[in-house]
């Protein structure tokens, strides 16, 4: 198991990697559920406006419909865009994470500053075979740096790599 992990991480270390493509599907499905809730809420609000406040039906229905279509299409389209702008790179020196479409960040955590790391899976992440790598530092603003959208095994091997590297260091 260790050899396979090390072989995997050997492929991981050094270059920039995108997230796992299944992350797009995962985000889309989550977005779909959210949009359903938004649609229900808007429908309810619209119905309340029409029935209780006696607003005219046609404009309210049109407005609600437009909002629902807008939010749904935005939340279904967005994950693919976010995917294109997200990547990570693990070198001997640091873990670098890039993300963000409108607000872009490049976060570099030197390996020696990683206090500990976790790999976690939400239930829906598990269904898609994805995992999240959480890296804890002693910082304040970036005390916790997370990398979502990784293949679960890849996340585990990255974490193992981080741990093993710690042991090899002479402190």
């Amino acid at each position, binding site marked *: 198991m260790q050899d396979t992990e090390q072989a995997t991480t050997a492929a991981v270390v050094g270059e920039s990697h995108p997230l796992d493509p299944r992350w797009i599907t995962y985000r889309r499905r989550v977005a779909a559920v959210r949009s359903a809730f938004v649609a229900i809420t808007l429908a309810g609000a619209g119905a309340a406006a029409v029935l209780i406040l006696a607003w005219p039906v046609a404009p309210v229905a049109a407005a609600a419909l437009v909002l629902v279509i807008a939010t749904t299409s935005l939340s279904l389209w967005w994950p693919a865009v976010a995917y294109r702008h997200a990547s990570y790179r693990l070198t001997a*020196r*640091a873990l*670098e994470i890039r993300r*963000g479409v*409108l*607000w*872009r*960040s*490049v*976060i*570099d*955590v*030197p*390996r*020696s*500053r990683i206090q500990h790391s976790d790999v976690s899976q939400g239930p829906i992440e598990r269904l898609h075979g994805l995992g999240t790598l959480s890296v804890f*530092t*002693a*910082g*304040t*603003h*970036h005390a916790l*740096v997370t990398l979502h959208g990784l293949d679960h095994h890849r996340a585990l091997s990255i974490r193992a790599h981080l741990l093993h590297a710690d042991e090899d260091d002479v*402190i």
Partner: protein
Amino acid sequence: MSSERRLHPLSIVFESGRVLRGLLLPLVVLLFATMNDDGGSVVILTIIAAISALVGVGGIIRFMRFTYRYDERDLVIRSGLFTRKERRIPYVRIQNLDAAQNPLHRLLRVAGVYVQTGGGAEPEASLSVLPLSALEEMRARVLASGGRADAADGPAEAPSAAPAGLAQPRRTLLVLNPRDLIVAGFIENRGMVLIFGALALLEQSGATSNFFERLFESDNAVMSGLAARWPGAANVPAAQGALIVIAAVLTILFFIRILSTIWAVVRLYGFRLERVGDDLHTEYGLFTRVSATIPLRRIQTVIIRERLLHRWLGRRSVMVETAGGQMANTGAPQREAIAPILSVEHLPALLHELHAGLDLSEVLWQPVHRRAFGRMLRGSLFWPLVLSATAWVVIDEWAIAILVALLTMAVVHARLRSRYIGWSLTRDSIVVRDGSLTRTTRVARFNRIQVAAMDRSPIDMRTGMASVRADTAGARSGLVVPFLPDDSAVQLHGEIVVRAAATEFTW
């Protein structure tokens, strides 16, 4: 393995007092409210007596159950009313031992002791109260054996801690007399905090609403007086009201400054900063005497502040951020400035103590993007416009005066700031400065930098700028350089990562 020790017996009184203070205040208020009602006050008194008895008994039990001892590597504290809790704190992890004494503590020669470890806002353990001799013993044992062998800041720094904390080299770095404190209080202007606190109290008793009602009654003496001096003004209700408001505001602002000055003198009375071995000791306070220890190696960032008045009077203010030991509600002292005020000439010497080899005068400051001024200005237009628009509704054309004033302030602020922001990388640290009228310089060694981040907002991307942040432990606002040109940002970001990764971080 040493013997189990207890707190000072007076702890029962102090701790019970503290608990009762929190519980009883509402009850006492209630008591006064029901004073006319005999039945009600008897009930309240019984309740108060019952609660006091319970708290007293609880205090005695807690005192009996609380013990501490010095093991070879840890401080072991056992406590607990119902559930027994044993807490082991390795000496290595203890960053500070802070002590606080109010006048009663001082009279009885005891102190509340707070053990601070890394990464927490609250003390890891509170020992309230210990006799002063026990505090000295704890300092000696804990800080002397605090694992100095693993200090990895550079070539082996020979630990200057003598065994068992005896005869450590003591050097006084700064002493502030009341005159310095008056200047400090006046400049810092912390009076607003007190004002808000006082106002909150007054509000509860309804005094404030009465006050404002009486002030604006038309047959008020003040109003008549003003009307007599400016006969024309009496006919213009708006001017009348405005005069009152302006006079009141100015008086209040002045009063706040005075209050802040008095507060500083009381809080920082007898301020003394010493270097004892590899630690800094600060001591201050007129009524509540605080004594704090800051091991040098726990210092994450050094912050030098200069407000406008500081500059005019040739002074500065120095603070440090340490990991652990920020403000806590449990009565532990706040992390105070290392040098609440000191003259510019003495600054290099103090900085040398905190950060050997740092010479601010030799720093080559790198500027930010040349378009930063325009961008800052555009960003600061919102509030002047909004405020003058609202003022227009009330005072018509006079709003233009307000607009001009606010715009001038915005331009001055943007100009000063865009010229002042700068950064630099020295041999072992990153230095960042920011501000316009109030200026702040922050220094952090690379071995204290945790994470390097480069962020770009949508506006950043349109203007070709970015901001770079070097994250440290215990940071309030952190080392951030905004408005950097893209290539400088990438270069700075990369450089920070390289240098931080090349060093090792130890608590």
